[in-house]
Structures are given as C-alpha cells and as structure tokens.
C-alpha cells in the first residue's frame, strides 16, 4: 500500500477532522457496495479503509509518524461484501421495483424482461441433501427403509443391492418445492454404510473370519457360516489351520455386470477354554507334534 497520507490525499499536518472528512469522501466514492459493478472498487476501498484505520486512530498515527509501524500495520482481513450475494435471486432483499414499469410495454425488451421474471417465478426447487446410515447387510442385499426428515415428515427410500459407502441416491421430486410451475427439486441421499463386526468388503467380495475348534480343524467337518443373506453350511477340510482361506461362491455383493462376488472365509483355530487336561496329556506324549516346527519354512 502507498503512503496513507497520499492515499487519503491529505497533508502530514492534517487535523483529525480533515482526515475523517477525506476518508468519508473517498469511501462514498469507492465503497464496493455502492459500486456493485466495479471490480476495481474493492481494492481502492481497501486501500482507503486501511489508510484510515491507521491515520484515524491517534495512537497508530503517532506510531506511524514515528516510524514504529509501517503502512501495512493496518491491513484489513478479507471481507465478503453485500454485493457478492445481493445480485442472486431468491433472497429477502431482492427488489424488482427499479424496472417493473419496463415490463408493461409491448416491445421486445419488455417481453424479455417478462420472460425472465416468469422463469424466476417458475423456478425449480433446490435439491436437498440428506445422510442415511444403513446396516452393512442391507448395503449388500438391498432394503426398503424410511428416512425421518429433520424438518418433519418421512421419506421412503429403496436401497438397491450392492450399494457402497458414500453413494448418493437421487429421489426425483422429493427436494424443496419450486415456485409456480417450476416443480420441486430432488432429494439427494448420501448413504453411510455402518460397519458390521463380522464382515469386511473388498470390491464385490466379502471376507469373514470364522473361529473353528481344534477337532473341526484336525478332523474336518461341516460348520455354519454367516453370509449377508443368512447362514449357510460349509465343509472344513481335514487338517485346516488358522489362516486357511475358503471361498463361498456367489455370496458376495452383486456385480454391476451381473452375478455376485464371493465370500472368503478365513479360519481361526481356537483351543478349548479352560484348557483341557486330557488334551494336554495327549500333546505331552505326542512325539510327532514335538518335532514339527511351523516356523521352519520362514
């Protein structure tokens, strides 16, 4: 910023009254809200206002004159002006009274103004955004749910199967009402999938960790496994171990191109609680178990 005395156009010896008067004159000329169409007005007003912040305050002026602070000591923070909002439609301060009479004529200009006002009068309502938390299982299988709106009332929402966290559903015509024949806007529903402690999703596939007993691991057998569509029976092969990964075909999320992903089941061998003395005695005498080292191949 230039020297504040130059900005306000006053001498260094100017009185407080002269400075205030110079500021008022310039501010009336350059205030952005009194010059809505002049882009340069904001910068000029900022300079004038900053200069007055400095010279209009006796203490700051004294310190500036003494060289203790420079002309940027009174920098103003960024400000949004009324003009930045006022030319938008649909606010309480909007006024047509400056040109309403021009709409009465039968010339092309009046016709354009009338059409423009009609378009404004028949404007589509705005979209409204909502957030809808849903259970993990519903995101895979699909569901129907009812959303309670913060402003009162409810909205019935159909969750399509295979939906992912953050996906936005559009309900046409369920947004805010429009004006005239404009019609309502849409409801945009962002779906928030609540995690399920049993399942993890990876694309179209689902994974799950399934605890099995030592007996099931050693001898194999049939176990019940949860899937998003209910429990199914799965065969654990003989000699299964913690970390063995089995696939349940088609039990994942629906694919866009048709069909379903898979559910992957990772087994986790769990010993009995409390420890069984007979098992302990068996392992004590189990020679082959002592010589087997599962870390050998690492």
């Amino acid at each position, binding site marked *: 910023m230039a020297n504040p005395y130059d900005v306000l156009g006053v001498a260094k010896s100017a009185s407080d009254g002269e400075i205030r008067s110079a500021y008022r004159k310039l501010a009336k000329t350059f205030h952005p809200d009194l010059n*809505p169409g002049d882009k340069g007005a904001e910068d000029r007003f900022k300079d004038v206002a900053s200069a007055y912040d400095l010279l209009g305050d006796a203490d700051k002026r004294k310190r500036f004159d003494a060289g203790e602070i420079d002309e940027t000591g009174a920098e103003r923070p960024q400000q949004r002006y009324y003009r930045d909002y006022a030319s938008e439609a649909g606010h309480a301060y909007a*006024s047509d009274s400056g040109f309403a009479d021009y709409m009465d004529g039968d010339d092309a200009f009046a016709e354009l103004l009338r059409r423009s006002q009609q378009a404004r009068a028949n404007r589509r309502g705005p979209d409204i955004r909502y957030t809808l938390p849903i259970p993990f299982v519903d995101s895979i299988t699909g569901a129907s749910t009812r959303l309670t709106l913060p402003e009162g009332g409810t909205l019935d929402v159909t969750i399509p199967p295979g939906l992912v966290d953050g996906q936005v559903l559009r309900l046409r015509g369920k947004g805010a009402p429009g004006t005239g024949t404009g019609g309502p806007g849409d409801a945009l529903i962002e779906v928030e999938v609540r995690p399920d402690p049993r399942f993890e999703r990876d694309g179209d596939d689902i994974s799950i960790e399934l605890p099995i007993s030592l007996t099931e691991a050693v001898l194999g057998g049939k176990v019940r496994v949860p899937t998003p569509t209910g429990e199914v029976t799965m065969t654990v092969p003989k000699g299964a171990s913690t970390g063995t990964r089995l696939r349940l075909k088609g039990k994942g999320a629906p694919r866009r191109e048709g069909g379903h992903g898979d559910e992957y089941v990772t087994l986790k061998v769990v010993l009995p609680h409390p420890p069984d003395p007979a098992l302990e005695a068996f392992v004590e005498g189990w020679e082959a178990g002592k010589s087997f080292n599962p870390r050998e191949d690492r």
Partner: protein
Amino acid sequence: MKREEFLTRSGLEVRTLEIWLEQRWLLPAAEDVETGFSEIDVARAHFIRDLQGGLGVNDPGIDVILHLVDQLHGLRRAFAELKQGQGPLDGE
C-alpha cells in the same frame, strides 16, 4: 446460522440487532430469528455498519440507500438473466 454466531460475525450488539430488525434493514430468511441468519445478512450488516460508521450516514439516509441499492441489484440480476437467455433477441 444461529443468532449468536451472527452477532459475533457481524460485530453487532443485541440491542442494535433488535433495532435493525424492527427497521427491517435485516430480514433473516427463516421465520425463527434465532436460526434464520445467513451469509447475505452478515454482509449486509457490515455494509450498514460502514454506512453508519465510517461514511457518517444517518438512519433515514440508510433507509434510502438500502432501498436504492436493492433496486440496483434487482436490475443487475435482470440484466444478468437477460444476458444468459439472449436467444430471442438474436433472431430479431
């Protein structure tokens, strides 16, 4: 935005806000003045403060200025809309 946030952002005292609402210089959008303030109200409050403070305009003067400025913005909006939909003029 809530009333307290509006008061902080605009730098107004409660009593001043009440007077400005009575004068209809500020027209919060919602019926509930506790929550109905928006960015345009904050910007308008700053404008009125500039007029009253630095520019030394008295209350009747502010009434006139706000009325004229709102008309000016109405005109600017109409011009902008005409400019956007200037199709009908092209053929004439």
